[in-house]
């Protein structure tokens, strides 16, 4: 079976008044039906990666190098009709702010039906039936009535369910979720996470879930890739990342989660701030903040150390057995 996703040596630069090296040499692959969390802080390049996958970056200001293959198709070569079929058909996206992503002047049923008509060539009535079925699947109560609601008539959690229904209406092979629960309350967030987990199993699709919250990543994904300064610094199963993080940045993120920190104990905070990426990193981008940095870390980009199958860390000291602290 072809791999669901194969990204190799992806480099993305934004040009203009100032240049930003947003993505630097990222390679990443996913098998069919996998759930991967892209974990990182603001500016780490996780959302840019998603946008590149859908070809949503502004072409005039963006320089892209590298290869992106989805289901064996080179999506950077897609144009016109083929690109339209791919977006929303094979790959679709759930955004952080459903209130902004949904069109305020059409009912939610209309918006879902429109997608289905475009992609599957169904009649309006059939498409509305699909829309109704989708609203049911995302557990919207009295879906019949909600079909004719406008986005502003729904609560935040309900809107995110509609967004998911819209994204899944054409049965994509890959769902991209860009912090879909960040704007929601905790009790609603866990509902949406569990819904996504269930739908993922039911539809057998792959999911890339972008988040800055390790707890959310644990709830949703089998695998985690940690991003920093436009690079993947560590990748592995959720279990490996949570139980045996090897990159000092991942270790710092885990400590900053405060999950089992003693009350009032001093936090082991990562000092400083992420780099601005005005130039492409020539050395380990985390070295200036790293408690374990050596001279070699500042002299060149650390190569990936492969610890096991599909388990890699970009750190010169990753194979040291004693973890920090």
């Amino acid at each position, binding site marked *: 079976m072809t791999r669901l996703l194969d990204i190799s040596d992806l480099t993305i630069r934004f040009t203009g008044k100032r240049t930003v090296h947003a993505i630097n040499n990222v390679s990443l692959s996913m098998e069919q039906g996998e759930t991967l969390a892209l974990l990182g802080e603001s500016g780490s390049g996780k959302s840019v990666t998603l946008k590149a996958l859908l070809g949503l970056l502004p072409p005039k200001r963006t320089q892209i190098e590298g290869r992106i293959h989805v289901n064996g198709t080179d999506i950077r070569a897609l144009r016109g009709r083929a690109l339209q079929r791919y977006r929303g058909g094979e790959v679709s996206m759930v955004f952080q702010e459903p209130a902004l992503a949904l069109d305020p002047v059409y009912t939610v049923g209309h918006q879902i039906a429109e997608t289905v008509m475009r992609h599957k060539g169904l009649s309006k009535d059939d498409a509305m039936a699909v829309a109704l079925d989708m609203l049911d699947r995302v557990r919207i109560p009295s879906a019949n009535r909600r079909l004719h609601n406008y986005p502003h008539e729904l*609560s935040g959690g309900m809107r995110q369910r509609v967004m998911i229904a819209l994204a899944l209406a054409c049965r994509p092979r890959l769902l991209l979720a860009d912090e879909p629960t960040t704007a929601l309350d905790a009790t609603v967030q866990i509902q949406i996470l569990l819904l996504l987990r269930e739908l993922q199993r039911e539809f057998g699709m792959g999911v890339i879930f972008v988040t800055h*919250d390790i707890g959310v990543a644990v709830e949703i994904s089998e695998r985690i890739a940690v991003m920093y300064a436009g690079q993947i610094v560590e990748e592995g199963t959720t279990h490996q990342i949570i139980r045996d993080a090897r990159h000092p940045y991942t270790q*710092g993120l885990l400590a900053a989660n405060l999950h089992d920190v003693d009350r009032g104990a001093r*936090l082991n905070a990562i000092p400083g701030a992420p780099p601005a990426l005005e130039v492409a990193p020539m050395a380990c981008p985390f070295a200036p903040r790293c408690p374990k940095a050596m001279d070699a870390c500042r002299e060149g980009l650390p190569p990936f150390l492969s610890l096991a199958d599909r388990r890699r860390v970009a750190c010169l000291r990753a194979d040291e057995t004693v973890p920090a602290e």
Partner: protein
Amino acid sequence: MSATDAYIPQPDTGGPAQPLLIVRALQKHFPVRGGLLGRTQARVQAVDGVSFEVRKGETLGIVGESGCGKSTTAKLLIGLTPKDRGEIIFDGVPLGPDLPLKDLRKGVQMVFQDSYATLNPRLTILASVAFGARVQGLPDPDGLARKMMDRVGLDPDRFAHRYPHELSGGQRQRVNIARALAMSPRLVVLDEAVSALDKSVEAQVLNLLSDLRAEFGLTYIFISHDLNVVRYISDRILVMYLGEVVEVAPVDSIWAEQAHPYTRSLFSAMPSMDPDNRTSEPPLSGDPPNPINPPPGCRFHTRCRFAAEICKAKAPTLAGLPGNAAHMVACHLHDPASGHPKAGQGVPE
């Protein structure tokens, strides 16, 4: 002269036993106007009969979902939103003729979530930090501002003449903290002050807040939706739901046992952080109800698994648990005389 010397709070008048802040029956209803004549159509009961105390030197964490009234409570405390009714007593002196709002604000300062929106984009950092001191007529506001900037970790020589847009989110939040400190407050209200920051920066700011509390003897009200952060920094936790206090307890006590069914759900909604033992069932279904026309009786009864007839009819009052009076909860399950069929047995599993 260091920042510690520049911190000159108003004297402690009530003594250590006097709570720094007492809030009694605080209420705020926002009218919802509409229609042709702009008549009041409904009332958002944002804060409805909230009472609590903050002791000297402690940190009170306030948690709850959006719309529960936690931010409105904070704004009512310092008069940013005028209250409908209720009493605010600061160190034994009620807000009123003896304690005008301007004097209260010398003692109570606030730090908001959106670090950018709360700084004037046309003022330099130095001017922003010195602004309050200047308005209150304190001597040498600029010198004071530089000391406070230095104390929160912003080199005054590098940052004094910069503008807010030139700073990162973490740096801007430090500016907001310096601005609050420049007034030598005794109580600082932190309304989601670290929520917008990245995790690694959040840890730095939490460390700073802990240091400042110890150094200046500050008292905090810490509002957040992140239970892990609230547990880390607070001594007691107050849980709000739809404008009311449903539970207030020392951190260890509430972490060991959540006495209100809503608190229990809120805690179970935290991600597990354990890949082998992920959450399998959402603790609550649906979104929090609208604070316009909240349900009668206990406001949580529409989402509560243990709701009985009495819960729809009668609102429970906040009372201490048997054997642990410091742990207060407003739920009929804990009141043997309430008439709830399972009353007196605590929250069933």
